[in-house]
């Protein structure tokens, strides 16, 4: 199997994905979660056999209009459950809305009420960006350290940079796809998405290291051998374990996605995307990057 020989295809494939992603980000932008932008989420359950779904939705819209002056949209999560996201309202306003509904319907339960002030959101965003930067730098430094004993023609810095670039590649693709998912399915950028991003940073590096570790070993074993051949063989030798380690993780993630409930759906989806591209990049992107600009010997 000659994987390095096909690298042009993969580089072009990645470039197209990256450009599509950047396009999606700049055109669609992101929806921000209330922990970032501030706002309120109210989830209600209205149990009243006599009431039609449509009526209770309208009643919730009326309640908001009457008590907070806001025009809102109601989502139905499950039968009899309603989800409203709006600008921040106070506890008192929320109580007024619930009381309004209680007068109309038999059983109104407040399942969840989450209200965040925008000032807190700004703080969370600042910390999240800081965390991302620190994570990438930390892993870059760690890689340079882990691969400090490599043959001279490929310095340890080269290993670190190639792995970090592959990781950045995964993150960018995830960011782009997430903009599309946000546009069409309503995924939001929130604390959990940042967590997913950072976790993908860890996983993606994890995968790349397995391949790089083999390259390091083979370089030592086969000194003077054709560099490209050594790297290609290393990829082929580790391709199954690269895929296997990610497949087990994907099993768990897919189970979580389908059966794990609504709250973490997009978080799991982001991880699934990240893990898939993590494997892809560790096989097709990271190692070719390692040889970037080195003359064939």
């Amino acid at each position, binding site marked *: 199997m000659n994987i390095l020989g096909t690298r042009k295809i993969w580089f072009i494939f990645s470039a197209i994905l990256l450009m599509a992603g950047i396009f999606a980000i700049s055109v669609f932008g992101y929806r921000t979660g209330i922990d970032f932008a501030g706002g309120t989420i109210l989830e209600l359950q209205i149990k009243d056999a006599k009431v039609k779904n449509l009526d209770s939705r309208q009643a919730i819209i009326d309640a908001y209009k009457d008590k907070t002056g806001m025009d809102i949209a109601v989502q139905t999560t499950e039968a009899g459950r309603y989800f409203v996201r709006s600008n921040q309202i106070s506890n008192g306003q929320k109580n007024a809305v619930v009381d309004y509904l209680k007068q109309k319907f038999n059983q109104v339960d407040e399942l969840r009420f989450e209200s965040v002030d925008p000032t807190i959101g700004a703080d969370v965003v600042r*910390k999240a960006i800081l965390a991302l930067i*620190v994570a990438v730098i930390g892993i870059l430094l760690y890689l340079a350290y882990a691969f400090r004993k490599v043959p001279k023609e490929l310095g340890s810095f080269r290993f670190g940079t190639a792995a970090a670039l592959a990781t950045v590649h995964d993150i960018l693709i995830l960011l782009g796809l997430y903009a599309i998912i946000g546009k069409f399915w309503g995924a939001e950028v929130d604390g959990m998405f940042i967590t997913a991003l950072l976790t993908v940073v*860890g996983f993606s590096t994890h995968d790349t290291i397995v391949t790089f570790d083999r390259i390091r070993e083979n370089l030592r074993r086969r000194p003077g051998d054709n560099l490209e051949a050594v790297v290609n063989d290393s990829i082929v030798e580790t391709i199954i374990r690269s895929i296997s380690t990610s497949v087990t993780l994907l099993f768990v*993630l897919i189970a979580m996605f389908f059966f794990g409930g609504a709250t*973490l759906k997009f978080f799991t989806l982001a991880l699934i995307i990240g893990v898939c591209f993590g494997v892809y990049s560790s096989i097709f992107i990271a190692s070719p990057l390692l040889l970037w600009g080195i003359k064939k010997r």
Partner: protein
Amino acid sequence: MVVIAVVLMALIIDVPAMAKFVGFKNGWSVKKGLDLQGGTHLVYQTDLSKVKPGSETDSVNGVVTVIRRRIDSLGVSEPMIQKTRDNSRVIVELPGINDVNQAIKLIGETAQLEFREGIKGKSLDATDGTTVTSQNYDDWKDLGLTGAHFKSATVQIDQSSSSLINQPQVAIEFDGEGAKMFAEATQNNLKKPLAIFLDKKLISAPTVQDVITDGKAVINGNFTLQEAKNLSIQLNAGALPVPIALVSQNNIGATIGQEAVSKSVVAGLLGLLMVLLFMIISYRLPGLISAVALVMYTIVTLAIFIFIPVTLTLSGIAGFLISIGMAIDANILIFERMKEEIREGRSVMAAIDAGFDRAWSSIRDSNISTLITCVILYYFGSGLIRGFAITLGIGVVVSLFSALTITHILLRLIANTSLANKFGLWGARSR
């Protein structure tokens, strides 16, 4: 043997029925976070504009203490109250609380009660000074008689004939110094109104009939019973040293949490099952052994969560489930290595040792990158994110341990039997 003992201990911790069987009365259970058991998470912004520079920490610590005392009266089990490092916020978590609205009312008010003296021509009429003319806080004179001088406050029902309905009122008792000040104040204002302010709002301004020397007073402000109770709790707990405002709130009903738990359990079991099947199908005998090790891993990790204890949130469960998917990866790296070694002509036993030996560097390096991420997430993250970082981090560490010890020991045990010569079982057909 040690491994079996560890797993047994873990099982006793995990399964309450087993704990009872062995003789522990109640057994243990995982500490559930707010989002799983229901409750409320409140974030208050502190207003430090009027605090002397340098004493911010003391003031906000005071806020925490006062809130704690107020909450104690609600009977919430294991409330969490803490301030942020920069003193800008106080976070209150009340698990399993029923009436969030009452808690919010109780916590948020400063509850600074003050007795103030009238000023002729300003707060009282200019002629004989017996009629109240202003409810404005600043029109009354400071007596220094505040909540700091209270000994206790209780709710009473006013049963005097003058009131038609039984009106709740709050009776207060001053401490020694306060009693003296109060006696003086009543002396100086005999037959004149004395104002009672709560958070700079006038509650009432009764006219002093007698000099009161026993330090007892009654506040009658058209309270409902609940309001009177709240006020007495607040007075007993003391006033907040600085005003606070509710900026963020997260109430989760118990139903949602229970659903999340049961869904996560289903997802977790399913994911685990798929991983087990995958391992057995792809790696045969070693796969089966790693499957056993993975089940042990799950049991031990859960026991560690209970033992530390780690408060499990929804994101924490996610971290744990993901760690199950990751825990197996060290095994995969080792088994692939073993296959190579067997193919190169080593005996199964030698291949096992060489597999562990040679795979170690990539296992170590690759898992450290995940651990770095966990540390950073923990450091920068809020509650939800931290829960994920902790469980994933613990999972990664325990999985390293289980791959290197449990799997290794089990493999060596089996390699000593006749199974060692059936290469097909070891996933290496080409020989």
